């Protein structure tokens, strides 16, 4: 029983990490058709932000709370620069965005190595997140609980922006039909920039969050990028609710598989499952109904 609860939480928790990594990607890949391979490196930038902030604010709790908005800004600004310098020249050419952003990812990794050194740096977790609470005898790690809550807050914030703000309406209009949106007086340029800012900013927040789990080093992003794309593709491109379902489904299944076999075989089973699923339903869990002719 104790183990069952522990494992259920492990699955949810893994799902929340996947969701956090994939949420921003769902926006930039799904809504804008940009395959941003540097998304993982934006996470890395967020993680190093947490490290830098912690060096100036020694209280780990305060620095974590400060890091979250700062990480959002750092990720968002990197996204804005990438969009302005490179990506805006290649909308409608998703394969080119893949190559270009892959190059950017390598440059960012090398930059991190040059600035912070090759070995991982240590971002301390605040005292109030160390340890765990007991749920029917099973220890629920507080850091993982915090990440679960953070991912739900990010999700709620994103849904709120998309559903209830003028910006959200513009984003949705541009996604459905870019030309018609432009004709109706929406500045697609500005909308693209803001969408990319939010999507990349979410990567920064995800980066801050994962410093609580693993190591903070130049390769941090590469650990998450493939899983994040899997979530977005399995969920249905451009579908926030699809990403949510896919992230938690993959998280829970991964921990079930891993528990009943081994970590390596669990990973293989997940990939096989996704391949089979995409054979049956290439559009993912949900598909976007668009009126664009492209």
């Amino acid at each position, binding site marked *: 029983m104790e183990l069952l609860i522990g494992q259920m939480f492990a699955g949810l928790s893994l799902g929340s*990490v996947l969701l956090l990594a994939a949420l921003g990607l769902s926006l930039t890949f799904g809504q804008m058709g940009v395959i941003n391979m540097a998304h993982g490196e934006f996470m890395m930038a967020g993680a190093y932000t947490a490290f830098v902030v912690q060096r100036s604010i020694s209280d780990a709790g305060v620095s974590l709370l400060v890091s979250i908005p700062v990480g959002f800004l750092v990720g968002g600004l990197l996204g804005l620069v990438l969009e302005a310098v490179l990506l805006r020249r290649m909308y409608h050419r998703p394969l080119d965005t893949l190559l270009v952003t892959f190059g950017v990812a390598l440059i960012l990794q090398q930059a991190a190595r040059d600035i912070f050194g090759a070995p991982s740096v240590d971002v301390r977790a605040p005292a109030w997140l160390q340890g765990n609470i007991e749920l029917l005898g099973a220890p629920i790690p507080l850091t993982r609980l915090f990440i679960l809550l953070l991912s739900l807050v990010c999700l709620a914030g994103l849904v709120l922006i998309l559903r209830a703000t003028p910006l959200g309406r513009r984003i949705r209009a541009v996604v459905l039909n870019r030309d018609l949106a432009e004709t109706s007086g929406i500045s697609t340029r500005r909308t693209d920039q803001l969408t990319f800012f939010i999507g990349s900013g979410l990567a920064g927040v995800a980066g801050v969050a994962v410093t609580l789990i693993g190591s903070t080093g130049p390769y941090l992003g590469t650990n998450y990028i493939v899983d994040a794309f899997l979530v977005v593709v399995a969920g249905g491109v451009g579908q926030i609710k699809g990403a949510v379902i896919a992230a938690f489904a993959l998280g829970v299944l991964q921990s079930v598989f891993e528990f009943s076999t*081994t970590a390596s075989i669990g*990973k293989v089973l997940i990939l096989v499952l996704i391949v089979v699923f995409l054979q049956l339903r290439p559009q993912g869990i949900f598909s976007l109904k668009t009126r664009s002719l492209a």
Partner: protein
Amino acid sequence: MRVSVTKRALIPLAAAAMATVLAGCGSQISDPASANSTASSGSSCVDTSGSSVKVGFINSLSGTMAISENTVFDSLSLAAEEINAAGGVMGKQLQVVSEDGASEPTKFAERAGKLIQQDCTAAVFGGWTSSSRKAMLPVFEANDALLFYPVQYEGLEASKNIFYTGATTNQQIIPALDYLAEQGTKSIFLVGSDYVFPRTANKIIQAYAKAHGMEVLGEEYAPLGSTEFSTIVNKVRDSKADAVFNTLNGDSNVAFFRQYKSVGLTAESMPVVSVSIAEEEVPGVGLENVEGQLTAWDYYQTLDTPANQKFVAAFKAKFGAERVTSDPMEAAYTSLYLWKAMVEKAGSFEVDKVQAAAGGVTFEAPEGTVTVDGENNHITKTPRIGKINSEGLIDTVWSSPKAVEPDPFLASYPWAKDLAK
């Protein structure tokens, strides 16, 4: 820290395996005179006529292993500098030729060939991963040259052309198990990265446990670089094992120890013995996550020997007070001095004379006196169990009463007789 065998490493690996088969079972060391009779031995181009002699350093100065191997390069450089300041080897100054293995086994093989044939070095020092060593082995055998390899490894190997100055399994893993048994450990859980070294190590641990009535409650591997340890940690916690034997590699240790701690497991409730976390890795893993946990090595910076105090002081003077020394660094430093002693005993830089003189050569190393075993070209070492202290250094909590003879094929352990096959 080791990396997995890549596809590219398989070819030299197969060659190495062939060489081992060819060498037969009579001697643990393959005999180049018969196995490599076609190779042009004796055509050594080492020039000893001048006032200097060339030696080669081969380390990954770039790529994923650079973090670790740069530290070995630093301690080799220190040893060369010290030897030169004290008058060199047989009156000749050492002239170092350095090559970058770039974390790729094929590159190691190629660069080693260059160091031997073009640079005409008298001996080569370096290598870290088992795949890089396996790739270089046929090159050194074919050219009848010498490699000094400084890192603890999985054993089951011996070559006339390689001197192994790191620990083999009976000088690190088996003493760690003996220590656990002595502490009353009845059951252990094995956690490792999914590649060569942990799998080989765990095979040995399984055989040991079976023979000593110790129960192995689980054996889990995480993909290299993995940061998701919730499930493994849950399994470990649920097993209620007395201790965990950790052969995880590199950054996975960070994620493992954080998640280990977050489900309430501590060094007191369930100690973890690690074989690849040394002084320089502790800050990256986060001191608060590993403080009080155990390590198994033959050398720690805190060792209180005159030779070590001199080594640590010289290293810090050259590279900065914030730098730390570690086991592979010490083994590399020692390897250069051992070669010097062998050359002086042989009275010659020639490979066959150095090989003939090697057996019984000793050096007062920072870890204590080490002696070369002429049978298998490994050295005696003193296994030590350490505990990570509040400064991030490692205190010795148990030390072998005397240096342990190297036994790379575990021939002296009846329970291991199936492993060396």
